[in-house]
């Protein structure tokens, strides 16, 4: 079995990893036994009845009505509830069923925590938990995008154009298209050509849809880049080198700023010159251009760091707030866990 999970035999490392995972499991078990516990998801059932009426345009409209209305249809949805709401409901009527633990969502929560830790574990080196998570995400995401492509694109934009009444009866009751649209045969044809590659005969015509995509988007991007990037950016750079304030006084700082912008754009453009060696005037301008590039990159780096740390914080918040129930900044639970932990610790210390 070990060759199913080991890419290369390294028993030493394997033991190390098992030890680490066990240690984490023990810590989590200790945490789960303190205070109000951790990592549970609660749900409540929302049940709404709908009743239909035919509008002036002949369309059937459904509106929400009181439960038990004659001829109404009821839809039940299971929605999240917070731990605080559950406690409040239990306090009011013990054993109530309106708000209850959801075992599938609780399982999901723990799974999500496992995946989070597994990805973090890659920072210490490749390991079976990471490889398992990697395999899961490849399979799930490939399937995910196929499903999204099917329901968001193929059904409404292709099938609904070709067989509107069928789609209307099957899954899109509000579809506005009513007649067969022959134009939709063109993308269908291109798609079939593309998929014909899966057969040995189709290699040649499989190139045509590719050529179509590349050609049309080459044209489209040329237009959009010339319009917004060349014309608009050049226009935005045509600024006076000498600036005056609103009151008509000379604004030296704004002037310096404008001169720097214009000079910076010209020098950086010089860096991108290919057919002239970077010597003499072009070389000097290109050198200044590189300085501007470096400052640009430095600022982009600084800004991106901000974003990445915020994302990391969000993941820790998931672990601390949603899973471990260590802190509760949103006030979703009733007991402050940190004080519960402090209480437990002192109780343990007293016992010792």
């Amino acid at each position, binding site marked *: 079995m070990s060759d199913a999970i080991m890419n290369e035999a390294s028993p030493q490392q394997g033991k190390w990893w098992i030890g680490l995972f066990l240690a984490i499991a023990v810590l989590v078990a200790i945490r789960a036994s303190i205070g109000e516990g951790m990592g549970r998801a609660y749900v409540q059932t929302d049940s709404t009845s709908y009743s239909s009426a035919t509008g002036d345009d002949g369309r059937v409209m459904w509106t929400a009505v009181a439960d038990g209305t004659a001829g109404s249809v009821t839809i039940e949805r299971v929605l999240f509830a917070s731990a605080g709401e559950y406690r409040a409901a239990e306090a009011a009527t013990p054993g109530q069923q309106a708000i209850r633990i959801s075992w599938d969502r609780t399982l999901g929560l723990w799974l999500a925590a496992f995946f989070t830790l597994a990805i973090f574990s890659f920072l210490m080196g490749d390991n079976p938990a990471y490889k398992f998570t990697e395999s899961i995400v490849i399979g799930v995401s490939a399937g995910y995008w196929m499903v999204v*492509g099917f329901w968001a694109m193929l059904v409404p934009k292709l099938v609904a154009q070709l067989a509107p009444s069928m789609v209307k009866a099957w899954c899109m009751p*509000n579809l506005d298209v009513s007649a067969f649209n022959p134009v939709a045969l063109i993308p269908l044809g291109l798609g079939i050509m593309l998929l014909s590659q899966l057969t040995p005969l189709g290699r040649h015509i499989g190139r045509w849809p590719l050529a179509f995509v590349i050609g049309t988007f080459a044209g489209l991007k040329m237009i959009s880049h010339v319009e917004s990037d060349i014309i608009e950016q050049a226009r935005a750079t045509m600024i006076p080198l000498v600036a005056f304030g609103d009151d008509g006084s000379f604004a030296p700082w704004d002037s310096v700023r404008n001169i720097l912008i214009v000079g910076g754009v010209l020098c950086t453009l010089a860096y991108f010159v290919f057919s002239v060696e970077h010597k003499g005037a072009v070389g000097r301008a290109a050198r200044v251009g590189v300085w501007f590039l470096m400052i640009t990159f430095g600022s*982009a780096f600084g800004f991106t760091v*901000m974003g990445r740390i*915020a994302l990391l914080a*969000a993941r820790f918040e998931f672990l601390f707030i949603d899973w471990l129930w260590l802190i509760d*900044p949103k006030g979703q639970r009733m007991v402050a866990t940190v004080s519960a932990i402090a209480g437990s610790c002192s109780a343990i210390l007293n016992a010792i």
Partner: protein
Amino acid sequence: MSGTLDRRWIYLGMMLAVALPILWNGVTGKTFPESPTPPSQACFDAIEALPEGSRVLMSFDYDPASEGELSPMATSLMRHLMHKRLKPVVIALWPLGPTKAEETIANVIKGDFPDRVSGKDFVNLGFQTGGEGVLKVIGTDFRKQFPLDRSGTPVDRLPIMEGITKVGDFPLVITISAGYPGGKEWVQYVSSANPGLVLLAGVTGVQASQIYSYYPGQLRGMLAAIKGAAEYEALVSAAIDGDRVTPPLYTEARRRMAPQLFGHLLLIALIIIGNAVYFSQRGRKAVAQ
């Protein structure tokens, strides 16, 4: 040279720098004060300037991977729009955007503005595939791309959509974007083509430096990364809550600024140490030669 320090120590340092402030914050509930920079203030002012009842197009162009930075922006923007009695028309260019939009609507509108009616005061028109192609089409025909709202009602029947045929009919467009298609494409296809339209963008840190070159011309205001979100949150809180305590839903970005600070300090320390090591080694080599 970097071999002198196992990179795993750096990782551990970063973990502590981010995790400990979150715990500290969770226990004490303290945040740092924020003073808004011009791009954030410009966003706030653009929304303040709209007359009550104006319709605002709001595009959720992100997914869960970036919600750490962008969700607080979406929440604050939505709260501000609701408070000003403006009417957001929500769309998404990212497939997972509508779910994020639903979350924002559930948290803000259903939680704090329960009197607002879907279809009249706000609407979620869902996601449309096609990226920048969608933007191209809504330039001339909005309903072609968004014929139904998320619950399936044709837009022709929604009071909020009355008279809206193209994107230029909205006085204000807000995109909250994590990448492609996002802020840049909105500038390219929508802002450039509709000179009268005001475009605001909430962007992730990584996009900020690129998007900056469109501000304040093609882009009237921008919220850059979690800092921009925190500044905007502070502006909106000051305008709505005054001296009262802001609900925790609307302090999320400010809470994240503490880990931010320590993360940045760690990075700065690392750069300084790295250079100190580099120069001392170079100095030693020079002496040896």
